[in-house]
């Protein structure tokens, strides 16, 4: 470039063009357009016949050239610049520039890495000042591309964050749906259970009623013509169907216990106990000696459930005695020391009887459903009383147990939360 040209390139003009380039490279948007404008502006600093910028990012090359080369010469230009770029990188002198008489090639460096090159070709030989000006532009381009890269990465990070966020939201929604689905299933199975219990109490009791009633009708209407053994059979039919009916009712009571909501409140056990004894003929002094060791500690319980427990335990104590022995029951309460857990006052209610006792082996299955330990003929019972006791006590947050030996009576206990008094 001759000196007259250089004179025309005043320092004011240089400052203006550099400022223009700086302004162009402020934003990462419309990158290619901005870079084209920069290449155009370069022409005002370093006059050229052609100018090319090759950028390499993630193994992909972008070529910008002024003037725009013919479409068929573009691949050749790109691959020759590509080779040049890799040659620059390969010889380790990444920052070295190639200066030939009428050609300048400068590396574009972003974050200490060569990511591209800028090449101008002029009609005349370039001089040092041209190199300096062009390297200023190259360094601006490097800074710009770093920024663009960072912005892209930030955008990607934000996109990734959004993706993860929506993934989480999806998962949460899915979980919620799952919970709702399961709740629905649970509700359905509870409804099914209820309808089963309902059918049990209606449809299954009707034929039973018919069996019992027709047996009775036969006895009433044709009793005279039936020999005593036949009457005996009919009586057994009546009592068997009556027992089945009781069984159905007890099973219903048991299933209701499992489902109904109960609220616990302080219960004066002694008062409740005396009421229960008073109401039932089989608990009167003529039938059984019941000794209450006053005072009994109050508990937190559910009135109807506790009534059921006490009634069932007393009934068993009265029922399961040896022939000819008058049943004797002793009832007392005991404050239990708190266990390792939270300081909660437990009260144990004891029911001791002089009954036939229970084998150690049998005690384990005593509180299960339909566990009758005695043959039908000897003791009446349907094997659900203690299952109800256990279920009711558990529903009140307590526990139940027994200490017994065959022939030596039993001591049943139920343990419930104590009521603050």
């Amino acid at each position, binding site marked *: 470039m001759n000196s007259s040209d250089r004179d025309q390139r005043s320092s004011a003009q240089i400052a203006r063009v550099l400022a223009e380039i700086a302004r162009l490279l402020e934003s990462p948007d419309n990158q290619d357009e901005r870079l084209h404008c920069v290449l155009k502006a370069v022409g005002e600093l370093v006059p050229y016949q052609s100018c090319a910028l090759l950028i390499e990012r993630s193994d992909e090359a972008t070529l910008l050239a002024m003037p725009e080369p013919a479409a068929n010469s573009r691949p050749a230009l790109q691959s020759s610049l590509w080779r040049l770029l890799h040659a620059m990188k390969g010889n380790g002198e990444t920052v070295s520039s190639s200066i030939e008489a009428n050609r300048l090639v400068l590396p574009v460096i972003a974050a200490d890495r060569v990511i591209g090159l800028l090449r101008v070709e002029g009609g005349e030989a370039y001089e040092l000042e041209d190199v300096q000006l062009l390297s200023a532009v190259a360094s601006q381009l490097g800074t710009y591309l770093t920024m663009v890269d960072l912005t892209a990465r930030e955008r990607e990070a934000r996109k990734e964050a959004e993706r993860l966020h929506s993934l989480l939201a999806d998962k949460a929604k899915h979980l919620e749906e799952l919970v709702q689905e399961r709740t629905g299933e649970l509700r359905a199975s509870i409804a099914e259970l209820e309808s089963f219990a*309902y059918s049990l*109490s*209606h*449809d299954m*009791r*009707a034929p*039973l*009623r*018919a069996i*019992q*009633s*027709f047996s*009775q*009708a036969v006895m*009433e209407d044709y009793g005279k013509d039936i020999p005593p053994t036949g009457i005996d059979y009919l009586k057994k039919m*009546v009592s068997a*169907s*009556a027992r089945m*009916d009781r069984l159905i009712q007890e099973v*219903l009571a048991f299933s209701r216990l499992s489902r109904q909501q109960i609220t616990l409140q302080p219960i004066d056990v002694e008062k409740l106990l005396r009421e229960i004894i008073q109401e039932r003929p089989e608990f009167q002094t003529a039938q059984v000696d019941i000794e209450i060791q006053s005072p009994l500690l109050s508990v937190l319980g559910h009135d109807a459930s506790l009534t059921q427990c006490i009634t069932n335990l007393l009934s068993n104590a009265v029922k399961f005695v040896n022939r000819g022995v008058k049943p004797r029951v002793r009832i007392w309460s005991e404050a239990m020391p708190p266990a390792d857990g939270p300081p909660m006052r437990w009260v144990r209610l004891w029911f001791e009887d002089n009954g036939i006792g229970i084998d150690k082996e049998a005690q384990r299955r005593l509180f299960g459903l339909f566990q009758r330990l005695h043959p039908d003929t000897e003791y009446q019972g349907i094997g659900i009383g203690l299952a109800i006791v256990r279920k009711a006590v558990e529903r009140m947050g307590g526990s139940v147990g027994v200490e017994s030996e065959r022939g030596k009576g039993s001591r049943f206990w139920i343990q419930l939360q104590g009521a603050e008094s």
Partner: protein
Amino acid sequence: MSRQLAILLVEDDENDVFFLKRAFEEAQIDNAVQVARDGQEAIDYLSGTKDFANRSRYPLPCLIILDLKMPNKTGLEVLDWLRQQPVLRCIPVILFSSSAHRNDVERAYRFGANAFVVKPPSTEDRTDLARFIKGFWLRFNEPPMMCTEGLEAAQRFHASASEGGGQAIGVAS
């Protein structure tokens, strides 16, 4: 006194019809016992439609014994329908059920049942029940006018009552 008035038994189970009639005989209830075999038939009977148009053959009852669980229309549906009938709504109804299911009992009373009875499984209890029904519902209880004076009188009474100023049915004596 309603000794000569009909009782409508609404029951789909033939056995239960048989045993209740038997208990009524045992308790010496002389009233005619009319039977409807399901809820829809009960509605037809009470409204005097279809096979039941002849009121002298199918008189309005002074007491309805209504089974709860029936095909076509349940006892509660019949009761609900009955209590919306301007004239018929005052007939006393005893709900009969196989169980004292809490929901059924509460709903029965809310729909306007006068009593709720669990069907007794034994002959003795059933006869007892028949005696109580005879003693209370057929002896001491005063039935509404339509049973004693005829449906037309009751309808006239209802019309004048709804014009305002009239007395409600059943209060007249």
